């Protein structure tokens, strides 16, 4: 016969301090775990949501980042004439030839640490190729003028990026005329201006990448082989989404490794704590347990009951940990993505799956921590336990 659950609940209430400390210990582990996974997840989400799968990004063959790539002007015109490039009603190809550099900016007014801020010079069609880009303040830059717009991630994190401010880019001065968002992607960490304007102040008449919309979303492979086979080009062709996702691998893996390493070690400590708590609970209740056994409850039921008790404690800890982690959602931070050598701001992204993993993790700790003490309880010798008490 099963021992009713209410027995466990009442037992836990009997020792409020001990129960609370165990719950809190597990909750802390879960907060750390959920927080770190959400950080890694937020970073990956920022990179993955940067590109569209029906956009094609073209860089120099052999380059794995835009920084190390160069694309000449004549190569750019050849690519824009390919039939795989979508055109709008007027016949204008939906392609942008980008200048891409990273510049050094101080993170705060007082000087302080420096960051590499990406600057992208785009063609005027860029806003239609990347239609996730929307102005949140001000207006887009105008053709032929020394004006830039700043992604909200950068605008919020760096001084002197307000609409109306002047910023120094290479050898030139530019006026910030607007802020933009881009579905939380990496573009939000960039400064955008017109490619022809930015070429002049940075590296001269050469682009770093081309991005175009596919005429037919299914025709990526055809477009890829056509462009890569052209002997005049020597270019590498990537899906825009896959290209940016690929640049997130290293840091995502590092953050995940850190999350698992840190919380794995913490979890071992928490399991030790849970074993101790349950051990004490079992030895303090040896008379009760003997009584239960005498009344005819099977050892198996006693074991199940104690296992249930530790699982309940851990479940409470898991839920509390998830609740404590919730306020972290949306907190933004930034670091250097070493694969693109550029500063990227991203938000802690607490999603239901991350929370579910946190709770499952907590319950796992409860089961592992409760197993030995529960078995110990079930194997009590009745006569001895009763006499001892």
């Amino acid at each position, binding site marked *: 016969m099963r021992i009713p659950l209410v027995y466990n609940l009442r037992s836990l209430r009997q020792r409020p301090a*001990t129960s609370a*400390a165990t719950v809190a*210990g597990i909750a802390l582990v879960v907060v750390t775990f959920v927080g770190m996974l959400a950080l890694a997840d937020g970073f990956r989400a920022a990179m993955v949501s940067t590109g569209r799968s029906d956009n094609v990004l073209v860089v120099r063959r052999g380059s794995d980042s835009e920084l190390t790539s160069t694309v000449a002007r004549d190569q750019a015109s050849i690519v824009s004439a390919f039939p795989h490039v979508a055109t709008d009603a007027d016949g204008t190809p939906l392609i942008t030839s980008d200048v891409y550099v990273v510049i050094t900016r101080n993170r705060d007014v007082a000087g302080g*640490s420096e960051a590499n801020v990406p600057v992208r010079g785009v063609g005027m069609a860029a806003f239609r190729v990347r239609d996730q880009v929307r102005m949140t303040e001000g207006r887009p830059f105008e053709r032929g003028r020394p004006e830039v717009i700043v992604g909200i991630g950068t605008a919020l994190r760096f001084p002197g990026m307000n609409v109306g401010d002047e910023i120094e880019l290479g050898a030139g001065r530019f006026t910030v005329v607007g802020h933009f968002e881009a579905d939380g992607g990496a573009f939000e960490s960039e400064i955008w201006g017109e490619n022809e304007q930015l070429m002049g102040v940075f590296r001269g008449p050469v682009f770093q990448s081309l991005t175009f919309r596919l005429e037919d979303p299914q025709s990526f492979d055809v477009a890829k082989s056509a462009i890569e086979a052209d002997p005049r080009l020597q270019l590498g062709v990537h899906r825009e989404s896959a290209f940016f996702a690929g640049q997130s691998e290293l840091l995502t893996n590092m953050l995940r490794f850190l999350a698992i390493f840190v919380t794995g070690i913490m979890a071992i400590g928490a399991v*030790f704590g849970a074993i101790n708590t349950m051990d004490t609970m079992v030895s303090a209740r040896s008379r009760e347990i003997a009584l239960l056994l005498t009344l005819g409850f099977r050892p198996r039921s006693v074991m199940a009951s104690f296992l249930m008790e530790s699982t309940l404690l851990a479940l409470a800890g898991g839920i509390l940990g998830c609740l404590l982690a919730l306020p972290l959602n949306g907190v933004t931070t930034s670091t250097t993505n070493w694969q693109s050598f550029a500063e990227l701001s991203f938000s802690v992204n607490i999603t239901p799956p991350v929370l579910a993993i946190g709770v499952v993790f907590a319950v796992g700790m409860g089961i592992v921590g409760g197993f030995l003490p529960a078995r110990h309880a079930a194997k009590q010798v009745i006569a001895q336990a009763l006499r001892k008490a």
Partner: protein
Amino acid sequence: MTRTGIVVANLRRRKRRTLLTIMGVAIAMFLFITLRSVLTTLSDSGEVGSENRLIVSNKTGFTFTLPMAYATRLAATAGVSGVSWSQWFGGVYIEPRNFFAQFAIDPATYLALYPEIVIPEDQKQAFINEQTAALVGRGLAERFGWQLGQTINLQGTIFRPGEDWPFTIRAIYESGRGGFPDNTMYLHYAYLEQAFGGEFGEAGSFVLGIEDPAQAAAIAAAIDDSYENSAASTKTQTEGAYNLGFVGLYGNIGFFLNTIGMAVVFAILLVAANTMAMSARERIPEIAVLKTVGFTDRAVFAIVLGEAFAMAILGAGLGLAGALVVFNLGEFNFFGFIPGLAVAGRTILLMAGITLILTLASGLVPARAAGRLNVVEALRHVA
């Protein structure tokens, strides 16, 4: 029986609990030391820079280069005793995950400015005299099992992208100073120039030897002023400041590591305090007996606190020993991410402080309760 004897006997009574508590403390301390060490190692990398060297780089950003023509004027600047330069090569060895730093240098002048790069004289000459030779750090050679005389291929990403660049390893250097990385590869700048038909003409940064470190700021200002309005403005910093700039790129990841470290310490405090409180509660009758046979309130207080101290210090010691073995002796550095990872002296001091706090937090309340215990009450309660 002595007081210490009682503490030891108490710890041995419930071996599993004592062991688990000590292990719990040890694990948390290990984790705390690991996180702190990552932070201190990163921030200390700035101190690795020599005071006798200045780094001149492009003011716009670190991926921008400076014209080679600057070398002559830099050498003529007052207070500068030597000039050399380096350029990031960025080659891929087999696959991108094998990442390590590669710099194209002018061997003779560069090595003269870096006494930290320690090479046997014959190997040094062999490296200098062959344009396709490579000089690699001991750590790097061990990582990939490279031998002297071996030829390795790097795939270019910036220079001749996608093509193989063969290098012959002619010299292996030791790091002459703690913290100076021994996982870098150096190659000939001239080899790189050759790939451009001798017309690259740019360097990522110049390194200047200066005679008097006290003049560093004045020299740096003089250089930056003289290039203020040229096509490529310069930024001149001491080597330490330059290195710290790279550390700054991690942003507030440091803040996260600190927060996690604190959460971990708080978690141990909770768990250990809980265990201590539990075992003290269990022993109320014993303490009453101890008092009955003549132990003073203060002696009982000391015994209970001593037990907490014993567990905390044993756990902390184990955690520290583990960290020293893994990082300082084993030289584990997170697969090359944190070169020179080591436990710093100030981390050990901080840990000593935490051990003390842990002892007080977990032992003080039960110890005071034990000291104040009313014998008659307690004995009646037991019976």
